[in-house]
């Protein structure tokens, strides 16, 4: 097809706009929605795992709590553990988690 091709002029007149901020915004909105959904899945999974671990270890901890806490160093360890868990929970809740998805050719 040459530049003088009669079809070229017709196709040229039928092009989508070169600049379209509303289209870009619509795409980025969809991206934000997809990211939110993925983050909710990841954060939900992390929280569920932490909750399950807590439920599973609670009986063991409560049975041995009095004996464990009789030694001062164990109290510090327990406080440190609680502080670490709090920090991890806060981090997961407040930060965007970079998802490294497996190389799935879904599309």
């Amino acid at each position: 097809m040459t530049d003088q091709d009669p079809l070229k002029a017709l196709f040229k007149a039928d092009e989508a706009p070169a600049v379209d901020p509303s289209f870009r915004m619509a795409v980025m909105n969809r991206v934000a929605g997809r990211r939110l959904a993925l983050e909710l899945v990841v954060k939900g999974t992390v929280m569920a795992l932490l909750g399950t671990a807590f439920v599973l270890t609670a009986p063991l901890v409560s049975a041995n709590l009095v004996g464990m806490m009789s030694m001062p160093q164990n109290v510090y360890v327990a406080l440190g553990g609680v502080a670490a868990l709090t920090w991890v929970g806060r981090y997961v809740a407040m930060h965007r988690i970079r998802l490294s998805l497996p190389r799935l050719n879904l599309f």
Partner: protein
Amino acid sequence: MSGIPTDAALVAAARSGSDRAFARLVDRHQQAVRSFLRRVCGHEADADDMAQETFLAAWTSLRTLKTATHLKTWLFSIAWRKAKGMARSASRSRMRDTTWSEMQDNTAEPQPEMNIALSQAMGQLNGDQRAAVALCLAGGWSHGDAAGVLDLPLGTVKSHVSRGRARLIEILGVDDD
């Protein structure tokens, strides 16, 4: 060295989480992708929706893109797969939109007569032919690149383009000198 980042640089930035870089990629390629999809599916709203899904799919699987310099070909491959896969649902939603739009005031700018004729003429080509014509005649792609995007043999693409062009010339009644 120019200050305009290459596709490869923008892909690298988008992969490391930059939304701004991805938005620039969208700005850079939206016209070509949308124009292609409009010509292939013949319905502007469906085509634009499919183009948005194409970019969303690209964002989701950006890490699977092996060579960032082939971004355009990769985007068009996604768009073409979407167009093929969504042909049925697009047709259903078009019927729904038409019913809805019949109830609305028609405030959209009327399309020039020749654009409507071109769109109708494209509608008379089969799907693969339409895509080959949209890429090679309208988009200026080489036959080889178009064959890569459409996943068709080179000879088939050449034949689609040649027959499609002849058919368009015939339907539109334009001078072919």
